[in-house]
Each structure stands twice: as structure tokens, then as C-alpha cells.
């Protein structure tokens, strides 16, 4: 039994998960820019330095390639590094280490070495932040065999999934929607229970249409579902949560039931995770779909500066329009 909190934000849940993991296992260490004295620019690592000291909470020099490479070396030695990339827009310099090393060390050595590391990073737009602070490029990582890509959309899922990610024997890219960091605090018990890294979460059951989403867009999806309910439309809402590998069985079962599907994500449309899910659903449900799958996404443009970001992000109205199209498809 762990401590019970009545109001925990997603950000605090991330913090609680790291604290617990570090208490449970001395091999868990945290590194990144400003994670120590400052507790992270969002305060996700608040209090870790005080509790676990300089040796386990490491402020790095300013170099993302280095953060990626160091983590690989640490993980190969049996540590469990949890590295923070300050914003997802700054992860690109670490790409070579993620693709060419973290994702491959186990395979390359036939299991002799492995890479149990977690890269945490805030993702997504919607907080009026400066340029490069609003990226949602999970698709790039979801295309890398050998890593897992996890995106929580509630405090409870952030907590349980991050604990599982830290446990996982392979590299996990853990993306935290900044727009949700301080939204909707919820009761949470710090019980240490892990959530599975290979299942979707059905947030709402329904029979007429399946809304599939992940990250911050889950919230607009839930709102859209609530509005449709008022009009007598029963919508199932699923948070994919783990966008690689994807639990297609759960998605398939839902859409088999409803026959209609709308996918909502914040990333630009082309070659995003939505296309993979749609294709896999078509492959599995060719005869059961009642209408083509709709995608509600950002357009294929870089995240605009913040004056335009509300348009860039899928809104409830956009989702409702797509649901309409799916429901009224002749």
C-alpha cells in the first residue's frame, strides 16, 4: 500500500513514479539538463536530487547527443538511466544513439549486452511556448525496431506506464504531453503498480464508433464522445498509449464491434502513426468496416508559432466533423 494523494497532476505522477523507481532500485539514475538543482524546467524531477544525491541525479552538460550516448553506456553496464530531453524538439541530436545503438545493442550482441534505458521528454504543442517546444514526432520513433514508444494521457497512466518503462529490459521513449502536465489532477495512490506496455486503454465504451487517440488529443476525443452521447451516439474512446508496438488486437476488437473509426493525433498527417493504425485496421477488418476510417490530424506543416497553434491542434469541432463523416457514410 502506498501513500494516497487526492489530487495529482500528470507531472506529479511522473515525479512520483521516478521517486518510487529510484527507491526500489539503486540502479535507477536520472540524468539530463537542469534535472538536478532546478528539478527540471517543468519540475518533473523535483526533489530527486535532495533525496538521491548527486550520484544518481545528474545535471549534464548541454548536449543531447551526449545524453543519448551516455545512457547507452550506462545501460549496458546494468544501470537503468532515465534521461530527460528537455523538449522533444531537441531530441534529434540524440537520434543516432537511439536508432543505431540503444535500439540495437541487444540484437547486435545476441543478448550479451542490453539497453534498459528510458528517454523521457515533454511533447506536443498548446502551451504558448517558443519555437521547437511543440513537436509531436512520435512517428519517427515508432518506425525504429527495438524501442518502445509510450505516451501517457492521464496521471494514473503516466505513473503506471513510467514505472513499467523503467522496469522494461529494453529502451523506451516516454513522451509526456506538456499540455496535460497540469490539467485535471486526479486521485492517485503511490502503490507501485505497473501498467502493461503493450495494451491500449479503453477509456469509454461505446457501440457506434471508435475514437482512437493518444497523447493530449485523448482529451478532445473524450469531449467529442461526451457531446456525441448527448445526441444519442455511443462512442468508444481508446487511448493507444503505447504507439510502438501497438496493441492492434484491442483496436481491432473495438472497431469490429462499432464498424466505424476515427483516429485523432496531433502530429502532421503524412507517415504518422495514424496511418499505421488505419492500415492495420483495414487489413484486419476489411469486411467489417462500415465506413472509411477518418483521420483528424495536424496538417503537414511545422508546428507554427503559438498564435496559430490552436488551429494546428485537432479540436473538438474537427473531431465531431470527422465522426459525422464516419457515421453518415452511405
Amino acid at each position: 500500500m502506498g501513500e494516497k494523494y487526492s489530487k495529482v497532476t500528470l507531472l506529479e505522477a511522473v515525479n512520483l513514479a521516478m521517486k518510487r523507481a529510484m527507491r526500489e532500485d539503486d540502479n535507477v539514475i536520472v540524468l539530463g539538463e537542469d534535472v538536478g538543482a532546478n528539478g527540471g524546467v517543468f519540475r518533473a524531477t523535483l526533489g530527486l536530487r535532495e533525496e538521491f544525491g548527486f550520484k544518481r541525479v545528474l545535471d549534464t552538460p548541454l548536449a543531447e547527443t551526449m545524453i543519448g550516448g551516455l545512457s547507452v553506456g550506462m545501460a549496458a553496464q546494468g544501470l537503468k538511466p532515465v534521461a530527460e530531453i528537455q523538449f522533444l524538439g531537441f531530441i534529434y541530436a540524440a537520434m543516432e544513439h537511439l536508432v543505431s545503438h540503444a535500439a540495437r545493442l541487444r540484437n547486435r550482441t545476441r543478448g550479451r549486452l542490453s539497453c534498459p534505458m528510458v528517454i523521457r521528454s515533454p511533447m506536443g504543442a498548446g502551451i504558448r511556448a517558443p519555437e521547437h517546444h511543440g513537436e509531436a514526432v512520435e512517428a519517427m520513433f515508432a518506425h525504429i525496431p527495438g524501442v518502445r514508444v509510450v505516451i501517457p494521457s492521464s496521471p494514473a497512466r503516466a505513473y503506471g506506464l513510467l514505472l513499467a518503462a523503467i522496469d522494461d529490459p529494453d529502451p523506451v521513449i516516454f513522451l509526456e504531453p506538456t499540455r496535460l502536465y497540469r490539467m485535471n489532477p486526479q486521485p492517485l495512490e503511490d502503490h507501485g503498480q505497473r501498467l502493461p506496455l503493450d495494451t491500449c486503454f479503453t477509456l469509454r465504451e461505446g457501440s457506434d464508433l471508435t475514437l482512437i487517440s493518444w497523447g493530449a488529443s485523448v482529451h478532445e476525443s473524450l469531449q467529442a464522445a461526451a457531446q456525441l452521447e448527448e445526441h444519442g451516439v455511443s462512442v468508444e474512446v481508446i487511448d493507444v498509449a503505447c504507439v510502438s508496438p501497438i496493441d492492434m488486437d484491442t483496436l481491432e476488437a473495438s472497431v469490429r464491434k462499432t464498424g466505424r473509426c476515427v483516429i485523432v493525433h496531433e502530429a502532421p498527417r503524412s507517415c504518422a502513426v495514424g496511418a499505421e493504425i488505419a492500415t492495420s485496421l483495414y487489413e484486419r477488418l476489411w469486411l467489417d468496416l462500415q465506413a472509411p476510417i477518418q483521420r483528424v490530424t495536424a496538417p503537414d506543416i511545422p508546428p507554427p508559432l503559438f498564435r496559430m497553434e490552436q488551429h494546428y491542434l485537432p479540436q473538438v469541432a474537427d473531431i465531431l466533423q470527422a465522426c459525422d463523416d464516419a457515421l453518415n457514410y452511405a
Partner: protein
Amino acid sequence: MPLTIKVPYTRYLAPDGQLQSSLPAWADDPDLLCRLYKQMRLTRLFDQKAIALQRTGRIGTYASTLGQEAIGVVIGELMHGDDVLVPYYRDTAAQLRRGVKMEEILLYWGGDERGCAFVDPAVAQDFPPCVPIATQALHACGVASAFKIRGEHRVAVTTCGDGATSKGDFLEALNVAGAWQLPVVFVVNNNQWAISVPRKLQCAAPTLAQKAAGAGIAGEQVDGNDVFAVYDRLQEALERARRGKGPTLLECMSYRLSDHTTADDASRYRGEDEVKQAWAEEPLKRLQNFLVEHRLWDEQREQDWLAEAQKRVQAAVEAYETSVPQQPGDALDYVYAQWPAAKADQRAMWLERVSRGNGEG
């Protein structure tokens, strides 16, 4: 058998405004000195206004240049019109002096891409502020390569913070600048902090200037709060670059008197004493003391200039706040030279979405 290294350091003006050594000949120009001072004062006024605008929600996050005005103003003063500035995000001082408009800087931090359109032809080739740390150093090397390939006597000047000197981009840039003897000057604004990471945790070397050694290029330190020192050494670096004699790394020792940005709270990670000490060494007062002592400046001129500066800043704020809204299509129209026919459906989707009226425009 240790490696040994010696890095030059230049300072003319002590923190109290007294001369430490006699000034070089170029400094015997009252107009220049007053111009530098006035520009620093104007920059600070604008900077404070920007912070105020952020506090009231009229722009977004802003990175203040408080306490580092000498570096940027001298950069802007010394660069030629056809040189190219490749700045980072804390370069309000240099940008203003180069010709970027105050309202453009506000637009940029206000979340509007037009802030980097730079209408003044004087800055038509300058780069916009660069957010991904240290990447701009390589762009500057590319610009300098173009100058060299075309045989032009132009210089690319790029700036970055102390934290940025740890990132591969910066170090790769020094190396190629040396290998190709590029006409580029790297100005490091060593303000002692990279958000919460102090300079000494960033790097074990006693100076950042000595990173030049590994690239085989010139490197030196100056007191970045002393306009004379910055001017003197930057002038030489620019000339050397312009004459094809190679690049320079100039480490300017300064201090970030502000929070990292308006989104930061520096009191979380640094002590008051340090900041208080730094206020005693800041560049504006230092130059003012010198000018007043040498009867080049006085209270009346100060008041007159403050009034004038105030007016300019106010006009810029008004221009910013009354700027016409962007067109919805703008978000797509500059992604490619021409929006691809293959994505015509996305354009339609976008315009429909905007017309649905989500959020602000």
C-alpha cells in the same frame, strides 16, 4: 607531462568605470562612445518593456539580455552592412543595432512568424534567432563558406551562450572553420549560467576560449561587460576574418542578471550574493561612469535620451499591438516555395478548420 595552455584576456575598463590600462587609439572618438552607450541604454529599456509585456500576457516567453548589452551592441556596431549575423535567442542587443525592428522582435516572441521576416534591407540576409542550441554555429560556417567560395570579403558572426559550447554543433563548427579557414567569428556570451547549470559544471576547462585550440584557431577572452575590450578584440577578429586570415573564438565574460527566460525562476538555483556582485560589474553603469567622468555624458543627456528611447519603444509596442492578423493561409504558404499540388486537400482541410474558428488567430 601535462599539456600547457595560455589564453589571453583583455579588459580596459574596471567594474567601477576606471581605466585599467590606456585605451587604444580607436577609442578616442566621443561620438562612438556615446553611440554605444545610447544603444545599450535603448536596448535595456526595450528589454524591460518586453518582460513587462510578457508579464501581462501580451507576448509569450521572452529571453532577457539584461546585463549583456555590451556584447550585442558592439557586434552590431562593428559588423559591416553586408556581413551576416547568425544569432541565438538572446541577441536582442545585436539584432536591434543591426536593423531588426523592435516590433519584429515582439512579434517573434509574441508567437507570430512575421517577426523573422525582417523588413529592413540592412538585415535581409541575417538569420533569425536560433533556438536549438549551438546549431547556428554551423549555419554561420555555411554562410562563411559561401563568402569564401565566391571570393567575397564578408564575415559571418555567430553568437551563443556558455552552455552551447558543450554541444557537438559548436565544436564541429570550430573545427571546420579552422580546417577551411572560414571568415567567421564565434562570439560566446559566457553569462555563467545555462538555465540552472553553472559554468563550472558545464566544462572542466578554465576558459571556454581554449576550445579554439582543438580546432587550431585563434581564441581569447575579454571582459564582456567592458565595451572597450569587446570592441577592440572583436574589431581585430572581424578584420582578420575579412582579410582571409581565419576565424576567431571570442569568449566574452558576462553575467545573466535576469532569469533565464520569463518562464524561469533563477532564485531556485543561484544565490543572491552572486547576483548582487554581478550588478556591481554590469556594463551600462560601467560605461556611464567612464563617460561622465570624462565629461562625455551627463544627467541632462541621460534624461533626454531616456525620453527619446522611451518614445521609440512605445511606438514599437503600438506597431506590434496594432499589426494586422496573419492570414490563415500563411501557415501553409511558406512551407514550400509553392504548396505542393499533392497536398491540395490539406490546404482545404486547414482553411476549413480555421474557419471553424478554433482558438486564436
